[in-house]
């Protein structure tokens, strides 16, 4: 509970209409896509950096935790008010301030929805490539805070590759600018890169300067079916080795194809044990050549069938196969742990084999799909949490999946971040000195630990580990 005095202070900052403590609102800002719930004590809707700054200054004086939130669509709990306190929602800061066609940069507020921004720049022939699956509803502020990825990142890179500069409110309430609208800039530490992916623990993004590209003239989509996962995985390496970097290189394993087959009327032959969705973009004649070359390269690797889209509608049909995956998984089991490990591209087949063994060992269905082109695999551990000990077995399986990815030189999260759900596993990936380095940064910038506490770095990792084991 916050003292009435604190609520009045918040009301003075943002106006009484923009602060709520109603129990219905507390419920509505208690969750995200992880389905965990933590009730806040208040929710505020500031409209500019000055208000955010005043809120952080007050939070430091009053010792109240503040949790920044965009669309609340994260998969690791990054925006959840794990310690009560105040949820700070960016939804009112939703203006595209400028699209500068001369310099190919745009300036936006953090609450702009990613797809709306993409549509706005595409209208003037420009292109913002990062395309997380949530792009229709997630915000650019949230994407930057989590350093979101997406299928197109194989060719174009992830969110951090497009953020040139930021306006940030620091945990203690100062308003700073990092980077800028220039393509080069090396004065001082690269705080932009530090902020992007810091999951709202080091500052609240209140403005973003974004790099844009010219919109590619055309694209071509292909669905290639293989008789083995090995064939598909080798095809990924072969395409890259052939000096072609497609826009997207998505794969689905046999379990995924099975789900799609059961849930939709899409034609996927029984022999298809793995599927690659390959898209190329660029000049119209160049992509024709690239598409032809790709089909030649993969042909000897056990191709069962291919579908090449000629019209936009046919391309859409192919992407429908990929998009139907998420919903069709429910037919396997009602609950899922959606992990997003990333391994070096060439290790994808080995990782898939490891995951299969783990699924057998713990007798839990695991469905794999994702961005093969950059080694980012979505490992979906499907359970029914109502069935005794399934959740426990899933926990163990997850730990082994992480260990497997790390042993192959990979990471436990390619794009979802750490939040609170992966925080306990941090010591598996980062050595103690690296954790201490990160903690030193956090402690220096946020000595009272009021900004998104308990995310990425748990204050007391040992305690959490003990708690997990006691369970």
């Amino acid at each position, binding site marked *: 509970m916050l003292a009435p005095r604190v609520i009045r202070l918040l009301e003075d900052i943002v106006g009484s209409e923009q602060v709520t403590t109603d129990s219905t609102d507390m419920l509505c800002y208690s*969750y995200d896509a992880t389905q965990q719930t933590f009730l806040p004590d208040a929710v505020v809707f500031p409209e500019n950096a000055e208000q955010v700054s005043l809120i952080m200054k007050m939070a430091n004086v009053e010792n109240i935790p503040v949790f920044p939130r965009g*669309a609340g669509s994260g998969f690791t709990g990054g925006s959840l008010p794990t310690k009560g306190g105040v949820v700070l929602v960016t939804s009112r800061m939703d203006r595209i301030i400028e699209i500068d066609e001369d310099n190919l940069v745009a300036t936006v507020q953090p609450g702009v929805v990613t797809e709306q921004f993409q549509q706005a720049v595409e209208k003037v022939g420009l292109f913002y490539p990062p395309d997380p699956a949530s792009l229709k*509803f997630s915000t650019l502020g949230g994407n930057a805070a989590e350093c979101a990825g997406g299928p197109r990142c194989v060719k174009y890179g992830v969110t951090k590759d497009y953020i040139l500069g930021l306006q940030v409110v620091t945990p203690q309430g100062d308003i700073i600018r990092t980077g800028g609208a220039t393509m080069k800039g090396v004065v001082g530490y690269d705080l932009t890169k530090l902020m992007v992916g810091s999951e709202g623990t080091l500052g609240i993004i209140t403005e973003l300067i974004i790099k844009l590209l010219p919109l590619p003239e055309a694209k071509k989509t292909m669905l290639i079916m293989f008789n083995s996962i090995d064939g598909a995985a080798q095809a990924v390496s072969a395409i890259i080795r052939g000096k072609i970097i497609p826009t997207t290189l998505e794969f689905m394993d046999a379990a995924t194809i099975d789900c799609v087959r059961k849930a939709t009327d899409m034609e996927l032959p029984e022999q298809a044990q793995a599927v690659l969705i390959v898209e190329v973009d660029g000049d119209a004649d160049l992509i024709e050549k690239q598409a032809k070359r790709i089909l030649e390269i993969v042909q000897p690797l056990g191709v069962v069938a291919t579908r090449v889209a000629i019209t936009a509608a046919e391309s859409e049909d192919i992407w429908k196969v990929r998009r139907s995956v998420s919903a069709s998984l429910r037919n396997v089991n009602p609950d899922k742990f959606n992990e997003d490990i990333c391994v070096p591209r060439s290790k994808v087949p080995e990782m898939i084999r490891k995951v299969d063994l783990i699924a057998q060992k713990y007798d839990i269905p695991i469905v794999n799909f994702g961005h093969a082109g950059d080694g980012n695999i979505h490992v979906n551990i499907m359970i029914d949490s109502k069935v005794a000990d399934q959740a426990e077995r899933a926990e163990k399986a997850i730990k082994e999946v992480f260990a497997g990815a790390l042993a192959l030189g990979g990471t436990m999260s390619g794009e979802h971040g750490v939040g609170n759900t992966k925080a306990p596993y941090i010591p598996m990936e980062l050595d103690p000195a690296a954790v201490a380095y990160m903690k030193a940064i956090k402690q220096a910038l946020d000595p009272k630990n009021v900004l998104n506490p308990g995310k990425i770095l748990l204050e007391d990792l040992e305690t959490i580990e003990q708690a997990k084991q006691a369970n």
Partner: protein
Amino acid sequence: MSNHKKLEDFRQEIDKCVKCGACQAQCAVYKTLKRESTVARGKVAIAEALLDKDLPLNDRFVLDMSQCLLCGSCYDKCPNLVPTDEIVMAARREIAERQGLTTFGKVLTGVIKRPKLMETLVKGGQFFGPFLFKKIPDHSGLRLRFPVPFISQDRAIPEFSDQPFRSRYPELIPGDDDKPLVAFFTGCMINYTYPEVGEALVKVMRFMGFPLQIPQAQGCCGLPALAAGDEETVDLLADANVDAFAADKAEVVVTACASCHAGIGKHYRDMGGDYAVLGDKVVDVLKFLVDNGLVEKLQQLNHKDYKGETLRVTYHDPCHLRTQGITAEPRALLRALPGVEFVEMEGADRCCGLGGTFSVYHYDTSRKIGSRKADGIAASQADVVASACPGCMMQLQDSIQHAGLPQRVSHVLQLIAECLPE
């Protein structure tokens, strides 16, 4: 036993919501108000909390459940197909049941059941003629759509016709001998405010040669009452319609109103029994016409048959047709019209913002949603905005008027009728 599911019966569907947030991209109300309690996953969470007794049924709950257009867009794009529109309607029934008829109920049904009060209120109203509601039966959904004391003085309301559509025709209009009989469910808005849409339907059906039955005993489909959580009235109306169409030999019942299509189609099917038998016969008239070859017939029409210059026409998707997958048919008909140039507008699939009673209680939000629609209409540079739902037509007219745009609004049927030989 009730014909309607209780909120408790939706437990399983509520459990299916994984809080992914995809509904944020679909909800016109959320996009305008940007509060989590207005979007589907918020409403589902609130409904669940009520069932679990974590939240009380208070004014806030009533407000939250009122802030839904029932357009079904969130369901349409939900990865787990959580039927939030149905959950909201069940929540509204819960409100009516537990608190007696409150916000929705007390206001709306109160007006319906006390015609004297109605008349007094009507006399004070500035938009309605003093005799307006005398023309409309007690149970018409129009009374729910326009509860006078709550109607904003600012809203553009269509004129109410002196002679309701159904009184203009006999029960049976003959057609070609080899064509099966088709029945027409007119709905309230066509009967009372847009009889010209009904006239157009008659003309088009005549052109196609289908004999048309217009049962005089039919009434309101019940959707406005359903949206208000008023089970009793829904059942009363549904019974009357089942009786009205029971004697009918028609195997097909056409509607020219997207909301009625949902009302007597989808919702009667959900109610089961005799209601479902009627519901199963329901087809949107535009889909019926395309299935029966009208596109080809229109393409054969001589251009000279169309009086006037080339018309630039755009189309607004009514939510109640779009979520049923009826989007291609109206466009195919418009494209086939001689002298018509069809253009897509940006955001054709976005809700117009009417949402039946929603616009009555939340006119400001409704108008904001409508103004975004108007932006797309302006950019399309069309002469005419066509649609397939009188409710949408009314809202579009309102939005166009407020934006000071020159477009006229028309039902697709009217544009077809204009092209046909006399």
